[in-house]
């Protein structure tokens, strides 16, 4: 009975996952993408180590199941009957210590050979685009060499090496766009570098991978890979005052206060006096605030903004009637 149960359960579980994985391709079985050489190197390494582990897995689990079936106590054997009293076998034990050691050493060496590809070594010597990534609760600011700023969407020219310089403006975040390459932490007080070469145009979805606070689950980013011409024109269009203001509102403010300022984890702020007073707003955005009657503190979301971004936000708020006039029924109660 036991044998049948074990067989049935293992077959059911394995086939369920085989079916599920086939459905999920390419997402289910390996890292998504890859759309960069770095991502490709990671995926290659993944498939090799997965294959190695699969072999060990099959060997160990087969031995286990075989022993369970083969060496179960027979009905004619009393429970007190002893098996052969084998205390060990030094030669065998040396062999099964040495073999894993050799395999693991080989795996380590192979891993080291893949590092230059994974880290896109050499990119730092070529002409490349450097973008500064400033991670905030709960959005991403991208700063380009020409002084341009975008919020939550990173625009990149296709086939050109890029180096991201990541830092955290409040707590630790982690920049992760699985289809492009592995993640890199954005840590306050520190600048981390991440290099890759995007080779396909299109939008790639990313997220924050390090628990960073109440809206950690909603800190998405998009990497938009464009042709060189599209890259330049789109980036320029994003610098137009109302466009930058709108992106800032949607990225930095709306995550907690709602798209119309109606309140979510943060209080309702539509028409609030501070919102429509540029100086007071700038002060609040730079220092943050912890008000006991609300569930959550206001983080200093405006840290590191250039003046033009504060101005753009205020201009956008002024241009948006829902935000700049108080709804009649709204009270400033805690949202949530």
């Amino acid at each position: 009975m036991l044998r049948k149960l074990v067989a049935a359960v293992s077959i059911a579980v394995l086939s369920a996952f085989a079916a599920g994985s086939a459905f999920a391709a390419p997402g289910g079985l390996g890292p998504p993408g890859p759309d960069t050489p770095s991502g490709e190197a990671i995926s290659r390494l993944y498939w090799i180590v997965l294959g190695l582990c699969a072999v060990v897995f099959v060997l160990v689990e087969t031995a286990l199941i075989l022993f369970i079936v083969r060496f179960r106590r027979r009905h004619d054997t009393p429970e007190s009957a002893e098996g052969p009293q084998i205390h060990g076998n030094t030669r065998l034990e040396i062999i099964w210590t040495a073999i894993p050691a050799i395999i693991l050493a080989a795996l380590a060496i192979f891993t080291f050979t893949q590092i230059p590809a994974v880290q896109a070594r050499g990119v730092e010597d070529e002409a490349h685009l450097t973008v500064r990534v400033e991670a905030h609760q709960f959005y991403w600011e991208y700063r380009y060499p020409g002084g341009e700023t975008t919020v939550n969407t990173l625009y990149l020219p296709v086939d050109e090496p890029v180096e991201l310089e990541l830092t955290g403006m409040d707590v630790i975040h982690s920049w992760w766009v699985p289809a492009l390459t592995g993640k890199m932490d954005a840590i306050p007080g520190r600048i981390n570098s991440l290099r890759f070469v995007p080779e396909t145009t299109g939008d790639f979805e990313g997220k924050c991978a390090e628990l960073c606070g109440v809206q950690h689950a909603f800190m998405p980013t998009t990497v938009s890979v464009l042709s060189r011409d599209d890259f330049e024109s789109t980036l320029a269009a994003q610098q137009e005052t109302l466009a930058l203001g709108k992106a800032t509102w949607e990225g930095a403010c709306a995550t907690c206060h709602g798209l119309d300022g109606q309140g979510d984890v943060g209080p309702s702020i539509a028409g609030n006096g501070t919102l429509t007073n540029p100086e007071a707003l700038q002060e609040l955005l730079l220092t943050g605030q912890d008000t006991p009657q609300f569930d959550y503190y206001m983080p200093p979301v405006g840290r590191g903004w250039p003046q033009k971004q504060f101005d753009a936000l205020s201009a956008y708020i002024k241009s948006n009637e829902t935000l700049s006039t108080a709804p009649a029924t709204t009270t400033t109660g805690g949202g949530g």
Partner: protein
Amino acid sequence: MSTRSEALAPTWKEGSVTSWLTTADHKRIGILYIVTSFIFFGAAGVMAMLMRIQLSHANSGFLTKGAYNEVVTMHGTAMVFLFVVPVLAGFGNYLVPLMIGARDMAFPRLNAASYWLFLLGGLVLLSSFLADQGGAQCGWTSYTPCSSEQFSPGHGQDLWILGIHLTGVASILGAINFIVTIHNMRAPGMTWMRIPLFTWAIEAYSVLLVLVLPTIAAAATLLLLDRQAGTTFFAPEDGGPILWQHMFWFFGHPEVYIMVLPAMGIISEVLPVFSRKPIFGYKAVAFSTIGIAFASMLVWAHHMFTIGMPTYLQAFFAATSLAVAVPTSVKIFNWLATLWRGHLIFRAPLMFALGFLGLFTIGGLTGIMLAVFPFDYQAQDSYFVVAHMHYVLFGGTVFGVFAGVYYWFPKITGRMYDERLAQIHFWLLFVGFNLAFLPQHLLGLMGMQRRIYTYTQGGIFEWYNVISSIGALLMGVAMLVFLWNAVASWRSGRRVGPDPWGADTLEWYASSPPAPNNFDSVPYVTSARPLRDLRLRLQERET
């Protein structure tokens, strides 16, 4: 059953409640530890259920966002500090003196102090939920600056720190007690190569606790000072966030082995008894315990591959992490060889031990994958890691703990558990566990990051989450079956003699449950299986 020590005790100590409150008997303290930690296990398990309900479908609104982060934090912290470490301390307390033929721990009153500090620490930790601005919300790792005064206002984080301190002090005192006991109080003839493998594991567990717990205590103290006294130990401009991670993981990684080694010790006790064979390669198993403990102190930064560490350091920590797999695979192979040509008796302890073997292997293999650090850049902080660590800590440690609970249940209670319920418990838990955690590997590879309170994707992504939640539900049902079995059998199970399993070690020489003084005398120990030697001698005399 009265003994001289009881006769000398004041009469008010004889009440059934006060006698438990004032006890310094290692067996009673062991029972207190085990029962208390299982209650905390239930609490942390309910938190896990809440999370799986929340994640069972996309855009769920079951838990509020802040509440989810509190539950995620407290589930991890409670499982580590209030369940796994203390339940193993409970087994150690109950069993180590019996296994080595001693009458009690070296310092019985210190032992009682450890338990009461642990209980207090647990209550303080859980009281974090009641703090004015919510409980601690930065995960069991409580990375700074998330856990700093500015980003975690209120006293939830402070209570978390205090709870860590109290349970930490309890563990250090307990560990010192174990070390002194094992080194000094072994029965005549019990040399180091004759002590039971579970006792070897408790020795390694204790040494690791003494070495690494002070680091987390120091880190938590500095964090408390930063929060309450305005110091700047973890200030970002001075590299504070990285300092915290080093201090945390210098403790945190050995902590994993603190949680795994004693469970491995339980497996090394159970497999031989239910295969009717000696352990294959006693020395290899004992020395691999020491090897794992030593190597575990050299691997901590593999939790930090994505902080932007220099490549040579990443390579070093990858190499040491891969090296841990060597003594671990030695153990796996020796256990398999122990089964070879045995007469396997499929009672619950063996079922759970075999479950441990099968599941821990998976957790170990995904550990090798994660040590290959470029892959870790993708897997770090994703559900792949969540799945990996649950295969190690639940598929490994918790299955080992259940093997131990069923194995020693007749010793501790003097009664046999219900085998049929125990088998139901095993199969529900085994199936539920795999349903819950196998799909999480795939979710991680699809890009699901840890500690998110919801997701927006539908399709197969949501289906994997549905399966995972159903698995969690089955695990919950399994726990109820276990609870019913434990309570009912403790009250009215069939009574058993000193040695219902035909086991090998000295705890089975004492009556079930053992007398307050454990043994009147202990046979001279001539091998690692003193009880079997005794059985053989008796048989010889009869024939």
